[in-house]
């Protein structure tokens, strides 16, 4: 039995290749967890009770996608839809590993078929069409399945005249699906545009990290755009910018607080308050 559990942190820049898919933390094994923010050690139970927010310093660690839905939805209200969608390998893409094999092993490790979970649920009794990225699946990258599921979140919201909520946590488009991944940006934005006519709110919540083709499509098109504290959000990843400019980036660059300061997002909401704040928005807009 391990005394410490430290889920390995992924850098946003590593996400697109999916090489470093995290192993699911062996729950119930470790008793203590060390915080990436303050370096202090606290009970694992305390972390979990606080939705993976450090009970000592408030650092927001990654929250698995199922827990994310638990966090914001009424108990037992979530009905998963489109779970049957399975990714294909349209390019026959091979790098160090075949894309097909990478999909298979990631599916086995995560218990998911792709990087997005979606369906219907309720927040304080109000029905919503909702979806969330799973960063644990190939860095939350968007290929055809993710794009289709996001589009269907908007389709359902359109057909049933419901508010839509999407949580993003992604390195961007999935390069293993080439042009098909790029076109998911157009597809999701077109589906979102159709939904606008029902005059129901779309709330986009950006988590750490939200970059590339997802930031540059539906994630930044929310009627309201919210971010968790200190999330990395932007178009180009910091490594790309540093390589292009050949200089170090200023501290805090592309973090939620920086974007709020520049007028690029509407609010920063701490995880424990997320549910109540979403509910408030639904009251005000839906």
């Amino acid at each position, binding site marked *: 039995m391990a005394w410490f559990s430290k889920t390995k942190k992924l850098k946003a820049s590593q996400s697109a290749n999916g090489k470093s898919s995290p192993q699911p933390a062996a729950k119930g094994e470790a008793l203590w967890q060390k915080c990436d923010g303050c370096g202090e050690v606290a009970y694992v139970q305390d972390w979990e009770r606080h939705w993976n927010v450090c009970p000592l310093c408030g650092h927001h660690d990654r929250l698995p996608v199922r827990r994310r839905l638990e966090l914001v939805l009424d108990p037992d209200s979530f009905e998963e839809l489109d779970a049957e969608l399975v990714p294909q390998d*349209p390019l026959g893409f091979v790098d160090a590993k075949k894309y097909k094999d990478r999909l298979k092993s990631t599916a086995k490790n995560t218990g998911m078929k792709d990087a997005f979970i979606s369906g219907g649920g309720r927040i304080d009794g109000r029905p919503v069409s909702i979806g969330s990225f799973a960063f644990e699946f190939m860095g939350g990258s968007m290929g055809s399945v993710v794009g289709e599921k996001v589009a269907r979140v908007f389709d359902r919201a359109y057909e049933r005249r419901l508010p839509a909520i999407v949580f993003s946590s992604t390195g961007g488009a999935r390069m293993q699906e080439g042009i098909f991944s790029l076109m998911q940006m157009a597809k999701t934005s077109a589906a979102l545009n159709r939904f606008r006519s029902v005059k129901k709110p779309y709330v986009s919540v950006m988590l750490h990290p939200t970059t590339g083709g997802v930031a540059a499509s539906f994630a930044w098109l929310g009627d309201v755009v919210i971010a968790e504290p200190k999330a990395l959000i932007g178009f*180009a990843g910091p490594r790309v910018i540093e390589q292009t400019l050949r200089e170090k980036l200023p501290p805090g660059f592309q973090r939620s607080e920086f974007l709020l300061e520049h007028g690029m997002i509407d609010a920063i909401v701490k995880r424990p308050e997320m549910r109540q704040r979403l509910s408030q928005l639904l009251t005000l807009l839906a």
Partner: protein
Amino acid sequence: MRSASAKNVKSESERAISAATMARPAYVIDFERPLIALESKIAELKQLSGGAAADFGDEILKLEKKAKKLQAEIFSDLSRWQIVQLARHPNRPYFLDYLGLLFTDFFEIEGDRRFAADHALVSGFALFDGEPVVVMGQQKGRSTKDNMYRNFGMMRPEGYRKARRLFDLAERFRRPVIIFIDTPGAYPGIGAEERGQAEAIAVNLEVMSSLSVPTISVVIGEGASGGALGIGVTSRILMLQYSWYNVISPESCSSILYRDATKAQKSAEALKLTAKDLKSFGITDEIVPEAAGGAHRDPAETAANVQAAVRRHLAELKQLSPEQIVKDRYLKYRAMGIFTAGE
């Protein structure tokens, strides 16, 4: 009456074309070399024959036949990487060349009304086949100085917001939009991020998906990622024969996959990014043929091919009602993606 800026553009594009045709041997891709060598030999012989000291007529004819055969051989079996190289050929016709050759009465619209002018995108109103349209294109530079001005064809948020203004104007005045794509990507800079690069692109994707006028994009060189798509959600997607369009550039792909940008050749193959690939995937509507040996060998012929293709698609789209245009475009993009539904 031609506006002052139209004159400027015209002369600039004429300069560009003469640079493309006259300075041709100055830049040669490896695989073009045997052909160029043969051609300079033919030119030499022609010069000698001109002097009437000897008649090389038969020899010249033979060599010309050989050159034609060699060109056909080289170009019949280009690798994807070779096509990427052609798409980036510095003598390749750029947007302003097409603007000068295919449009008249250009009135440039430069303002984004937010922050700055973005010279990586040239946009405005013009006549195409005598009919008023909105036209825009990403513009690379020919010289270092020109490239600084054009930012190597990499748009900032201002460029996307300028384009968005033109989409709105096109919708209001019911003008078709013709878009030329040629970019190594949206600019990855500190200021661009501060001013919302991702947001600027995102807004365009949605706005373009909702336009009720015909929209046609032509990839004339490089179509890199969101930087290209940010002006590319169109009713029709055309691609020049030796252009590429993808989610990521081969260099960026290989630096992520192999942490080594020099393996771009390998990535180009894996990404399947050519016009032929995209046609086979059903993403591209039409491949526009280039002049033999690539667009840079004959910009005028290539432009004429672009004109014919755009003309034909525009005529088709103009038959449709505004509602049908929106619906068709929505269905086109909504259907993109490959997946299965099953256990």
